[in-house]
């Protein structure tokens, strides 16, 4: 790889809205998927000859299937409320990264072909034909949206740019213009069962190795079972948890929690992936097909509960969509929500005093928590709205003594995306990822300066991978990021209750 040809943005003294730098990110385009990758998913291998008509027809089809798209393309009044809310805009200053401008790339085509005003007076209402130039802009800028929904919090009509981006990606895939990173991963999960393409025997090997590590560290035999029929819980977790750092530390944490609580559990080689990149490309069928693997595994193994590990978009799909895509879950134990987040399980066990925790074990850490976008704005934990914010924080405070939140405008429902979500976690988008992380890095810098924070906990595999890579660009240590269950793992005292 060539050395980076971009500069890491400077921390702003006062975080004011940046001035516009038109075309600043016009050259940021991820690699296009090659024909075999596309065809494996049932998409055309390359841009089809009559792509313009096909794209318009696809847009028409989606308008009939998704009320969100239909309403959101009509409702925008260009008020500007969203213009300074996107982390990619703040970090890159490219005006096409303002949510409304990004939407308008698609809206202008909608107006031209599906509205009276756009057909009669295109210039007046900003309606445009889908030219090759505009299609290039689609590919460039819809691949600069992480579908994090921050703009939807602030829109007076709740317009969610993620819905527009997903529709645009679905249209582009349908005419043979796919993104390599995301579509390659979709192929792997269908073929092998997880995004990393880790086959069953390799997975088994990895888990055995982890069992040995835990035994060496703690002297306790903690199991990480694979395909154990009759287990109570099926754990579905992002495959990064199996071998990436710091992800694996959280996997060890889940194992210790189940072990101490005496809950029998298993992983599945068939559904060894919680992530669901079908959502990133807005494809209902892909998303459904991947979700059904979990249902098949749960039925095959005869489990009573399904628990999902630390992964943001996976939790969105699991919490919000699984019942629709792969339900009903009437064969599971109805006393537990289906599915359950690992944080809900751990929080519940802590409340009941089922875990022995030594908070002092985390005293070397001064911790903050990064709310992951999909958990924050597209899901819930527990029984009350906002549980997705309180439950992870209560876990952290139960296992550690030093916790400080970041600026209130950068957490909770207003949290900033890590900069790597939505299928953008690829090296060919490094400049975008570094610049998109700016608002989070600024908020982190503040608590580092004020409270000497040295650990940013999060519950998302993409956040962990993204921050590990991006933190050094801003002068931080890459090991500052880790999982909530990494902290639990440090604090939990195995053997104490046995």
């Amino acid at each position: 790889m060539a050395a980076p040809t971009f500069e890491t943005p400077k921390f702003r003294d006062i975080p004011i809205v940046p001035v516009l730098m038109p075309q600043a990110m016009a050259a940021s385009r991820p690699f296009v998927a090659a024909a075999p990758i596309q065809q494996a998913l049932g998409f055309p291998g390359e841009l089809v000859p009559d792509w313009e008509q096909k794209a318009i027809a696809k847009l028409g089809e989606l308008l009939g299937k998704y009320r969100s798209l239909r309403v959101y393309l009509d409702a925008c009044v260009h008020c500007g409320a969203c213009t300074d809310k996107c982390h990619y805009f703040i970090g890159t200053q490219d005006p096409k990264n303002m949510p409304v401008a990004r939407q308008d790339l698609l809206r202008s085509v909608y107006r031209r072909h599906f509205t009276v005003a756009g057909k009669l007076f295109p210039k007046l209402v900003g309606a445009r034909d889908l030219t090759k130039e505009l299609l290039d802009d689609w590919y460039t800028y819809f691949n600069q949206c992480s579908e994090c929904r921050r703009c939807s919090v602030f829109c007076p009509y709740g317009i969610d740019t993620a819905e527009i981006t997903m529709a645009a990606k679905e249209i582009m895939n349908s005419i043979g213009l796919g993104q390599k990173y995301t579509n390659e991963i979709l192929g792997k999960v269908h073929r092998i069962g997880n995004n990393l393409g880790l086959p069953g025997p390799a997975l088994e090997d990895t888990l055995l190795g982890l069992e040995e590590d835990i035994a060496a560290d703690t002297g306790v035999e903690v199991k990480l079972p694979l395909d154990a029929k009759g287990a109570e819980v099926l754990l579905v977790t992002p495959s990064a948890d199996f071998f990436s750092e710091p992800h694996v530390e959280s996997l060890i944490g889940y194992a210790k929690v189940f072990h101490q609580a005496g809950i029998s559990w298993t992983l599945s080689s068939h559904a060894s992936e919680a992530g669901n990149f079908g959502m990133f490309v807005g494809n209902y069928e892909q998303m459904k097909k991947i979700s059904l693997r979990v249902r098949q595994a749960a039925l095959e193994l005869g489990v009573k509960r399904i628990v999902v590990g630390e992964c943001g978009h996976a939790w969105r799909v699991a919490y919000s969509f699984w019942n629709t895509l792969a339900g009903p879950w009437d064969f599971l134990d109805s006393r537990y929500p289906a599915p359950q987040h690992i944080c809900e399980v751990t929080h519940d066990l802590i409340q009941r005093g089922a875990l022995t925790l030594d908070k002092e074990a985390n005293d070397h850490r001064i911790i903050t928590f990064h709310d992951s976008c999909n958990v924050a704005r597209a899901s819930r934990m527990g029984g009350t709205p906002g549980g997705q914010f309180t439950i992870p924080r209560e876990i952290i405070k139960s296992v550690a003594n030093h916790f400080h939140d970041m600026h209130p405008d950068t957490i909770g429902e207003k949290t900033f995306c890590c900069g790597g979500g939505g299928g953008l976690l690829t090296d060919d988008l490094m400049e975008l990822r570094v610049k998109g992380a700016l608002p989070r890095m600024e908020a982190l810098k503040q608590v580092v300066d004020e409270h000497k924070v040295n650990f940013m906990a999060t519950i998302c595999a993409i956040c962990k991978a993204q921050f590990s890579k991006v933190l050094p660009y801003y002068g931080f240590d890459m090991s500052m990021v880790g999982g909530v269950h990494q902290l639990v793992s440090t604090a939990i005292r195995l053997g104490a209750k046995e």
Partner: protein
Amino acid sequence: MSALTLIYAGLFYAAAALLIGGLGYKIAQYARTPAPLKIPTTPAPTTAAGAALRVAREVALFESLFKANKWIWLFASLFHAALLMVLLRHLRYFLEPVPAWVAWIQPFGMYAGFGMVAGLGGLWARRFLVERIRYISTISDHLMLALLVAIAVSGLAMKYVSHTDIVAVKAFMLGLMVFDLQPLPADPNLLLHLALVAALMAVFPLSKLLHAPGIFFSPTRNQADTPREVRHLAPWAAELEKH
């Protein structure tokens, strides 16, 4: 009957037909289009009543806009609240006898006309002064503001510059509603005001004014957060289950 009266009667019948027909078509279209997935922006209410209240707060208080930008919120609230008062005040030209509460709000309705202009002025100024909003503004965004300002100013002019024969206007309007045409006064100010209002009615269902019905159909706002409790399945998605 003068040609003028006939033209304006025709204009209003056409504008009303476009408004009602167009809006009815769009609302039916929104209602017919399924929302296949649960996508409320969370934290979200966990009951249908809670979600309805959330939409009500958006409509009445512009809750999300308040989070986003206090200036836009201020000008937008001022304009919309003033517009509401002005519309209610105008009921006196369509109802006989005039209900007591309509008579009571008359003075507030008059001042609200200035509020409308002030709110619109603030919103319009932002389109020139704020770089980001200047970048996203289209010709139609400016024209829409121009239309609304012209309606407000021509209306205020009838009160504060040169009075029109309001009794005759009311007779014309009451007549229109029962297809019994009455002569319309040939006051240029009035004619301008009415023509602009007819134009606004006509473009309503063809323009961004669709944000008014749109907000009620916005899935991120009107859905209850209950995906684990209730299985949500759109008709076209249910079809996929069969294969």
